[in-house]
Every structure is written in structure tokens, then in C-alpha cells.
């Protein structure tokens, strides 16, 4: 018996499907006792969906760190749904296999689905309850048209960067801030390339970065992000982010 039975058990748990409430305590292990305690406190807040003054027709992401994680999960759901849906459109289907656009849109699809699934697992492990699967409303997007697809991709990627940057200050657990940081820079890399695909060299234009002054990203508060995101979400899936502060 050279193998530690504990490690073997953990390996077996890692192999389980994501949706099973695997390793509820794994986040505790890595986040340390303080983060665990925070998560416990916060978990008391995550069942306040649809109470108080919240609109029962909306999806309340909750408050505290879990609120921020669910907010990020909501945005990643939206992005992932978009990159999944465009794969059925004539524009994507018509791209040559070796084209840059095909490779880029494939990668973005992979990355955003991974982000979505990561948040679902992370929130479950916190332990807390992830928000439901959101129903998008992409009726304003023409998935057969390059300009419509790339224009929307640009909007989503820029929105994601502004959202993460604006929400970081509400995070109280260092690990969660670092994880948000690990994702936001990838979103920014996406945004820059998609913007270049739309207009070459527009990766830091003044609509997203204050290039005339400090050259910093124009971050957005959760309330402003939700207003934009909600235009792509069906009734019953629109976000209430008022708990994040």
C-alpha cells in the first residue's frame, strides 16, 4: 500500500461528473479556514432569492461573495450560450476549417463553456446554491450574418471585462478575487482580438478604455451590466443584482 487512501478517494471524487455535488469541501481545503468561515456565513444569504422587494420574475444572484460568484456565473452562462448558438448559424458553418475566425470562435466557445461549468462547480463547493440555468433571448442577433455575430461577441466580451473589473471590489475572499482575475484577463484577450476582427487595431478604443487620460478599463457596476445583460435574457431569466454591494 504505497498510495495514501485519502488521496485515492479524492481522485475518485474528482472523476465524478460535475453536476453531482462533488467535494463540497474542496473549496474549504484550498481557500483555508477563513474563506470557509466566510462561505458559511454567506451561505446564509443565498436563499434570499425572490424575497423582500425583489421582483419574483427575476433571478436574484444573492449577496456577498456568493452573489458575486453567481453574477459571474450568470454572465458566463450568457456568453457560453451565445458561442454555442452561433455554431448552428450560417456564418460559422461557412467558415473554412483553417480560418482564423473559425479557430477564434471555437476557442471562445471552449473557454466560455469552461468558465460556466467552473462557476457552477465553485458555487456548489462554496457551499452555496448556483442560480438556475438561464434562458437567453438572442432574437436580436442574426447568426447567419458576420457583422451581427462579431458585433455581439464584441459586446459580450467587453461587457464581461467591465463586469469583472467592477465587481472585484465586492469580493471578500482573496482566492475568489484571484480567480476572477484569472478569468478577466482571458476575457480581455478575447475582447481585444474580437475587436480587431471587427476593426483592425481597435483593441483599446475609447468606448472601453479611457485612452485620453489614465488608459484604464471603463469598469461597470453590476446594476449597469445587468441592464445590458437583461436585454439578452428571456423573461423569467433576467438578473437582479441589487444584493451585490
Amino acid at each position, binding site marked *: 500500500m504505497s498510495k495514501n487512501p485519502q488521496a485515492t478517494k479524492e481522485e475518485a471524487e474528482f472523476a465524478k461528473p460535475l453536476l453531482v455535488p462533488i467535494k463540497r469541501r474542496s473549496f474549504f481545503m484550498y481557500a483555508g479556514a477563513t474563506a470557509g468561515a466566510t462561505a458559511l456565513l454567506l451561505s446564509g444569504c443565498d436563499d434570499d432569492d425572490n424575497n423582500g422587494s425583489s421582483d419574483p420574475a427575476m433571478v436574484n444572484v444573492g449577496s456577498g461573495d456568493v452573489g458575486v460568484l453567481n453574477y459571474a456565473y450568470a454572465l458566463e452562462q450568457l456568453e457560453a450560450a451565445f458561442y454555442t448558438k452561433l455554431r448552428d448559424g450560417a456564418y460559422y458553418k461557412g467558415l473554412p476549417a483553417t480560418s482564423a475566425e473559425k479557430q477564434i470562435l471555437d476557442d471562445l466557445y471552449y473557454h466560455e463553456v469552461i468558465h460556466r461549468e467552473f462557476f457552477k462547480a465553485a458555487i456548489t463547493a462554496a457551499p452555496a446554491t448556483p442560480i438556475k440555468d438561464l434562458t437567453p433571448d438572442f432574437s436580436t442577433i442574426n447568426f447567419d450574418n458576420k457583422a451581427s455575430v462579431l458585433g455581439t461577441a464584441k459586446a459580450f466580451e467587453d461587457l464581461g471585462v467591465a463586469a469583472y473589473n467592477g465587481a472585484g471590489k465586492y469580493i471578500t475572499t482573496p482566492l475568489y*478575487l484571484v480567480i476572477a482575475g484569472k478569468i478577466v484577463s482571458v476575457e480581455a484577450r478575447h475582447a481585444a482580438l474580437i475587436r480587431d476582427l471587427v476593426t483592425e487595431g481597435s483593441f483599446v478604443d475609447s468606448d472601453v478604455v479611457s485612452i485620453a487620460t489614465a488608459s484604464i478599463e471603463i*469598469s461597470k457596476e453590476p446594476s449597469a451590466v445587468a441592464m445590458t445583460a437583461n436585454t439578452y435574457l428571456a423573461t423569467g431569466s433576467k438578473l437582479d443584482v441589487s444584493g451585490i454591494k
Partner: protein
Amino acid sequence: MNIFQILSELEKVDPEVYERFDSRRRVFKHISGLGKNLATAAVPLAFTAIFNKAYGQTSGAPSATDVLAFALKLEYLESYFYNAGLGAPGATATAAQTTFRNLFSATNLSSLDKIRNDEANHVKALVAALPANTVPVPATNIFDFTGGKGSNTGPFVGVFTAPAVFLAVAQSLEDTGVRAYKGGAPYLMSTTTAGRTILETALNIHSVEARHASRLRTMRRAGASNNTASAVAPTAGNNESDRSASPKSWVSFKDGGGASPTQTAGIYGAGTSPTYTPASITFPAEDNVTQGGVNLQTTLASFNFPASAFSEAFDEPLPVPTVLSIASTFTVTGNTFFG
């Protein structure tokens, strides 16, 4: 116990006493807040804690000022690099700079000028955010962007005459910056409005560095003279051995060691955690696929995504000492700007 009297006395023997605290404003904020919230008897103890932070910091976590000063040093490095190659913002390019500029396509040159301007703005913004002279303005001659430590004949010789070398160094600097801001962010966490603003500003610089890195990678992939760089795919979709010459706009695995593997592999490698790092935070290499304790490649195997996607979806942080070591590649021998 008159705290302000003590500070005043201390200032006589240590003119930098205020700089040892986060900032002049913040120390008073701390003290007045403590005065309100704690019993009078507890104040001296709390005051001692602040003091220990100022004078006993070598083994402790960096303060907000430390993180911003560190960021400013990196921004100086980047800004001086672009200014040397392209000419400073608003300045007339020298003959050599003009010759060099003409080697880039119009969209690439415009992109480089935007990046140059951003870095100059980042320097200004951080200088304004810090107490005066926290980081003395470096002389231009403390840097050798060939990596020759002052010989100007290092591995990146031709950095300001050969566009490919320039882009290679630029990508390396920006990718380093992205990892550095990520590593510094936890030390900017705060519950005060002012503190939150500082964190948000740092995050807002962090993502701009990532946009720069993405653009530079796109330009490297297509070549300096290509005018529609974004239309060029990497030479082989998921072949890591190709990454150093033909990168994606995001970091894939360890990027094959980066733009010039012998010199740049460390930029994509693991960092060594300083003792003050919160236990939850680690600094794995960029090929890491385990996030928050979950191996995503294993857990999401049913999606049948390429292995590279799991590493690409997350950038990784680097700790301060590792970044300083990387940045020191570009200072001359004996210079201590990066320690």
C-alpha cells in the same frame, strides 16, 4: 498618549515616517477610525500594530502602497521600452525611430502607438496615486532592452531595429504585467471606499495590459508588416511546439516557453509563493488546469474539448519576487530598481 506628538517627533529623526505607512492620508484615517471604534485603552495597542506594519514589513504582506509602487516600476519599464523604440508620446521621432516605425504596417504601428500612450498614462496615473517620490523617476540608462545587462548586445539585440524582436520583447513584458497585477490584487482588498477605488483602478489597468498582450500576440502571429493581423490563424491549431513563433492571442499551456524560450520561459512558469501569501493562493505555471481545487480537464472530460482549452481559459498570477526577477533581465548590472 499623544499619537500625533509621537509621529511629529519621529518625523524629526525619520523624515520618511509617513511614507512608511500606506500614505499620509491613510494613516490618519486608520487612527481616527480606531479612535472612534476602540476603547481609549486599546488605541496604543492598535497603534503599535500599525507601526509594526510600517517598520517590520520585510516578512509581512505588501501594503497597498507597496503593490502600487511595484506596479509603477513595471509601468516605467514598459513605457521606457516603447518610448525608446517608437519615440515618446508627443515627441518627434529620431531618424532611427522613424526608420524603425516604417517597418510596421499602418494598423500595427497605430496599435503600438496606442500601447505606448497607454503605458505612459499608466505611469502618470500611478505616480499621481502614490505619495511623492515613492518611486524615484528612473534614468533611461538603467535599462538594457537587449537583455545584455548594460552591454546592449544581449539576446534581444536588434530590439529597436528588428520588428520581430521588438514584438517578442513587448509580448513578454505585457504577459508579465498581466500576471503581476493578478498576483498583487489580493493585497489591495479593502472595505473602505477609497481602498476599493484603488483595487478597481488596478483591475482596470490589469485588463488593459491583457488587451495589449492579446494585440501583440496577434501581431506576432501575422508578422510586423501584415495590415490585417487578426485574420491570421496560428500555424498549427493546438501544437504547443509552435507557440513561441506563432502564439494564440491567449496563453496556451506554457506557450512553448514564450517569444524567445531561452529567455522567456520563466514568464509562463510557476512562481514561488512568498511566506506572506494567503494559504489559498498558489502560483502555478500557465499550463495549470486545476482551479479552486477542481481539475477542470478531468471533471469536464465529457465535453471533449482540446486539452489546451483548459489551460487557456484561465491566466495565472505571479508573485512579486518572481516578477522582479523577470523584470531585472532588463536592468543594467548593479542597478537595484527591481531589487
